[in-house]
Structure formats: structure tokens, C-alpha cells
């Protein structure tokens, strides 16, 4: 049997799988920024207990395999705290996001720390409060420095999102295995999916690099990392 008609026949499912995969990735990236940035600020400017707690969080989420995290939350923690009704997609996105926050917080932290200390001193001496200085002086610079490293989180999360297959999220890899089981065509379908992942991967990276170029301030560059 030829593979192309099969792929066309399954196209709607494949597209829904792609949408689901991208949904996971976007949710995880969004959650990662939402949690990761405050965590980075807390780790740089926070009191000792705050820094300590964030350190533990990061150590935990970076030390565990994504598969174990998914099992832990999907079968263990969420049902135990009464959130057993959450769909696999939501759990997958939340776990990828919580884990992404741990990684991204370290990217943001590095960027914040790489902004010279003089910036804060100068801003304070101009009468800005600490939070105003962070918001209007430090972060606009730090976020630009962080962007190349942050962009690299996209392919990581994209490839990790495939592991959500293990808890039954109907994403691209799940659709692929269903196709393989039903059509008994293995290699061509796997390779087609690999192709889709590669396109999503480098296509997304290209978009992110375009964003970097767009928000760059002329003369203020860390260069392409």
C-alpha cells in the first residue's frame, strides 16, 4: 500500500494532532514565562527563604525525568488533591509548564544578573523605587538578553511534548501510533511524523529568531548566541 493516500486520508487527524502538540507547547511556554519570570526575580532579589524555596523547586523539576513527572501528576498528585477530572491535555500542559518554569527561571535569572549592577544603583540614585527600577530599567534589558536562550526552550518543550503520549494526550505522536496500528504501515508514517516535528521545530525557531531581530535595540546587542 502506498503511504501518500493514507497520509491524505488521515490528514484531519494529523492536523488535530499537530494542533494539540502546538497547544501543549504554547501553554507550556506561556506558563513557563508566567511562573519562571517571578521565580527568577525572587531568586535574585528575594529574601533568603524565598530564594531557598525557589531553588528547591528548580532542583526538583530539573532533576526528574519528564516521564516520571507526568506519571506523578497524572496518576498521583492531581487525583489526590481532587483534580482527577482534569483532561490528559491539561495535565500534560501544566506539567510541561511547571517544568518549563524551572528551566526558564534559570535563563531569566542569568539574564537579570548579567545586567550590570550599576544600572540598579544609578536608577535608585535617580529616585526610582526598587520595583520601578526592576520594571523599567533592569527587565527591558534582561528580557532581550534572555530571548536567545529562551528561544532554545521551544525545541526542548516541543520534543518533550511527545512524551505526553504516555498519559494519553492525543497529540501528534499518539495520532501517529494509531495510524501505524490501523494501517500496518510503520516506517513511512514514523518518518513522516519525524518530518513534521522537524518542520515545526525549525519553523518555530525561525519565527523566534525573527522576533529577536525585531525587538533588538540597535547598538545594544549581545549578538546572536
Amino acid at each position: 500500500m502506498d503511504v501518500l493516500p493514507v497520509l491524505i486520508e488521515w490528514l484531519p487527524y494529523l492536523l488535530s494532532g499537530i494542533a494539540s502538540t502546538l497547544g501543549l507547547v504554547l501553554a507550556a511556554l506561556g506558563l513557563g514565562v508566567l511562573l519562571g519570570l517571578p521565580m527568577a526575580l525572587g531568586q535574585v532579589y528575594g529574601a533568603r527563604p524565598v530564594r531557598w524555596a525557589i531553588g528547591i523547586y528548580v532542583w526538583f523539576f530539573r532533576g526528574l525525568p519528564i516521564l516520571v513527572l507526568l506519571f506523578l501528576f497524572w496518576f498521583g498528585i492531581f487525583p489526590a488533591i481532587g483534580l482527577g477530572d482534569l483532561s490528559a491535555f491539561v495535565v500534560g500542559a501544566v506539567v510541561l509548564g511547571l517544568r518549563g518554569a524551572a528551566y526558564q527561571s534559570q535563563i531569566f535569572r542569568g539574564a537579570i544578573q548579567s545586567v550590570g549592577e550599576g544600572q540598579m544603583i544609578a536608577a535608585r540614585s535617580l529616585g526610582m523605587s526598587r520595583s520601578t527600577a526592576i520594571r523599567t530599567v533592569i527587565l527591558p534589558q534582561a528580557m532581550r538578553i534572555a530571548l536567545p536562550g529562551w528561544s532554545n526552550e521551544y525545541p526542548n518543550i516541543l520534543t518533550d511534548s511527545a512524551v505526553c503520549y504516555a498519559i494519553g494526550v492525543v497529540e501528534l505522536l499518539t495520532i501517529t501510533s494509531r495510524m501505524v496500528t490501523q494501517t500496518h504501515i510503520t516506517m513511512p508514517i514514523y518518518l513522516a511524523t519525524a518530518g513534521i516535528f522537524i518542520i515545526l521545530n525549525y519553523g518555530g525557531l525561525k519565527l523566534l529568531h525573527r522576533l529577536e531581530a525585531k525587538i533588538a535595540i540597535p547598538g545594544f546587542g549581545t549578538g546572536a548566541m
Partner: protein
Amino acid sequence: MDQAVFLFDILLPALMQGLVITLQLIACSAPFGLALGIAVAVGRQYGHPAISWLCKTFVFLIKGTPLLLLLFILYFGLPSVGITLTAFAASVLGFILCNGAYNAEYVRGALISIKDGQMIAAQALGMTRWQAIRSVILPQALRRAIPGLSNEFIYLIKYSSLAYMITVIELSGAGKLVATKYFTYTESCAVVGIVYLVLVSITTVAVNLLESRVAVPGTTRAATAAQL
């Protein structure tokens, strides 16, 4: 059932067996992953244009594909073209390819960071290109690549759990099986998680020791940090 009985008589023995498989997976993959990474990086940086292109494409393809899909291809896909691997062998092969591709990027970064003058000077002293790479460039570059390579090694520890998805009962698989049988998901996954955290933490300490151990006095970590 008593918690202590469950923990010591059922969960921990099962996890011990799984841990052995996990360590076997890592031990079989890591050395070849490192060798592949170095070979691909050198091939890409110093090889014939065709070899260089091949190495570049290899890294491009492997980095673009999820590891889990790669494992599926090796375990479920290859038999359709007449190559049948055991689940363990397929896992190891997948880890070697993945680890190698990522290692290659770190080694290449380190190779680039070694100044051109080193190669020119080595050749001026009568070394061949290959001798210069082996005895002048690589010893410096590999030291600079240690932080990145050890990161990848830690990733390998964690991603070895994906072998469970192609039926290798390693650490997380063993935990999952116990969890399903006794309906103790939180406890089992938590203990599995602790074992991974211990593995990763020990490795972190070990690679830091290694880095200071092989450091050449005068070429400190500052040089490495600047290059990152």
C-alpha cells in the same frame, strides 16, 4: 497494607532491579554517545565538505526529532525493513544517537573557541592536521566542553526513562508497574523521583570534581564561563 511492608518488601526491591537496568542503559550509551559526539563535531569542523555536510545533517535531523519518536522508529519501525532489535538494544542505539548529536554541538562550540593560531602553530611545527587536532586542539576543546557534556550526561540519565515506553522495564517502568499493581501511584512515583534526584545530584557533584581534576592550572573556569 502496611506502608513499611509495601516500601521495603515490594517497592524498593522492584526499583532496585529497575535501577540496575537504568544504569546498564546509561553505561552502554554514554561512552558511545561521547565518542559519536566528538567524531561528529570533528567531522563537521575539520572534515571534507561532504563529511561536514553529513555531520551537520545528522545533528539537524536528530535534534529535530523527539527522542520518543526516535525510539519508536528504532523499535517498531526497523523490523519492517528487516532489522529487528531487542528493546534494550533499540533504546541504547536511540540514546547514543540522541546523546551524540547534542554532544556534538557542545564539542563543536568548544572546537570553534580554540583559536586558529593553535592549528597554524601546530602545523608550522611539522604536525599533520590530524595530529594537531588530536594532540593540540581536542585536549583543550574537550576541557572547555565539560560543562555542556556533563549537562547532556544528566539529560541522558533522565531520558533513559523513555526506554520504558518501548517495554524496557527500567527504573521508572518498575515504579509504574508496582504503582499499577498496588494502586500506589503517588508513593511509587515519588520514590522513583527521589532515586532520580539522587542519581542526578551525585552526577552533578562528580562532574564538578572531574572538571577541577582535569583542569590545567592557569586555564581556569573563567575561560570556560566566558565562552558560554
